[in-house]
């Protein structure tokens, strides 16, 4: 596999642990297919990006919920989300 080490590194960064080695093989095959982009001849192409001016965005205002959304979580204590220890 051409990209095995890099795939393993990226998987770790993405917090993915894989037991099935065929996953690595298929990702490697997919990346191999993406190499077709090299022959697209788009180096000089400019990317078109759709911009939405900030004035067009809706107001970022707090809307109180009439429900206790926190209760929909699996793990919470009082009004706090409960997470595993970091250290």
């Amino acid at each position, binding site marked *: 596999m051409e*990209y095995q080490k*890099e*795939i393993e590194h*990226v*998987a770790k*960064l*993405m*917090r*993915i*642990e*894989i037991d*099935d080695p*065929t*996953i690595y093989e*298929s*990702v490697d*095959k*997919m*990346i191999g*297919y*993406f190499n*077709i*982009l*090299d*022959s*697209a001849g*788009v*180096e000089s*192409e*400019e*990317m*078109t990006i759709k911009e*939405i001016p900030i004035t*067009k*965005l*809706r107001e970022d205002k707090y809307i109180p919920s009439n*429900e206790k*959304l926190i209760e*929909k*979580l*699996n*793990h919470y204590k009082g009004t706090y*989300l*409960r*997470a*595993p*220890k*970091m*250290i």
Partner: protein
Amino acid sequence: MNLKISALQFTKDVKSGNISAEEFISKTMERIQNVDTILHAFLSLNNNAVDQAREIDKKIKNREKVGQCFGMPVSIKDNICVKDTKTTCASKMLENFIAPYDATVITKLKQQDAIFVGKVNLDEFAMGLSTEFSAYGPSKNPWNTGYVPGGSSGGSAVSVSAFECVASLGSDTGGSVRNPASFCSTVGYKPTYGLISRYGLISYANSIEQIGPLTRTVEDAAFMLNLIAGLDHNDDTTINNNNEDYLKDIDSGIEGKKVGIIKEMIGEGIDPSVLSATKDAISKLERLGAICEEISLDMVKYSVAAYYTITATEAGSNLARYDNLRYGYDFPVEGYEFNSYIVKARKKFGPEVTRRIILGGFVPSAGHAGKYFLKALKVKSKLTRQINEAFKKFDLLISPTVPILPFKIGEKINDPVALFLIDINTVTANLTGKPAISIPYSMSNGLPIGIQLIANSMNDKLLLQAAYALEKTVKLPEIPI
């Protein structure tokens, strides 16, 4: 009770008192019980559907105001939030997730008195084109249950095709509405990007995905579009369609319209019966007065690679939120360190989602972004430029929706690149934001073939008119189930 009627016929019949919403919904729920053990279109059912229909009948009887759907049974892809119902994305990761709010499309359909009979199957997080990647097992094609129904909105297409509802909502990121529509012989509509709000659609690749209807007829697709399209302050990418009536003048015909035949979509790898159906559809359009000519969009060759590069990147970011803390399944946090907990929790993702998350980390990463992600964005730009040029000459573009016939369950599941390439004809509309429709057109060996029409942005009305004209030339058999 005839369950095989169109959405428009249903609303007309209930409104006039020919049928009651309650009776129709009851029979629909019975039909689901009878056929869905085989087809597996539904992931969950609405147990209150009959009661809701009864309320609508009461409103009609009391001459109260009733919405335009008159209790029409609609199925909803399970990546669209319906308040207080499970929304699993066909993933074990969201096995017990109850949506705390309605998607905008759901709010709009509720206002029009649609009845949601249930949530339907998909490839996990809409990543796939066969529903084989659903964590709850694949749906089956009602035309031949040994075959895939297409995807990712496979459950939507099956439920419409097998008369388990009158219409459905799916989502289309790279053909996920049109592909199953083609494989199951229903109409599948992907609107202009921004025409329908994505608020409440669980995100996969925000920059290109759209919610779209799957229906029995083109008129029904126009009807659904009338109900759900338009600006939404909760989705800043929505566009103002000035309350366009897509049903009005749908029978205008296509005389004098110029139709481009996309050369790259009828080339290498196409099934002979699909090619033959496409040529036949082109002849019919010509007989209806359209002028058809071949056109080349050479970036189509790179569109699949660009599409998967861009969508994987967006998926990698969107799915980072699934750490099992904010959303997730029952898995206690005690005894775990933070990172190891999240890694362990994310093992609930299925193989296709796992692959795409890894890809989504790889292709935009330092050292690779220039080779993959940035190049994919440039292909997207060039393809958009090419298609915009094409629409200076043509009103519409045509191709088969999918270059092959539906395939057997399990036949391609171990070859992800072969699966990718099935998207070759559908991803262009997503990458360029154009509206596109799949129209049931013919059959080969008992399996359906759909024809795709694409129009320029905001020409959804013209697209529906052309699709309607083509649909009227077709007479197809009924499903065997």
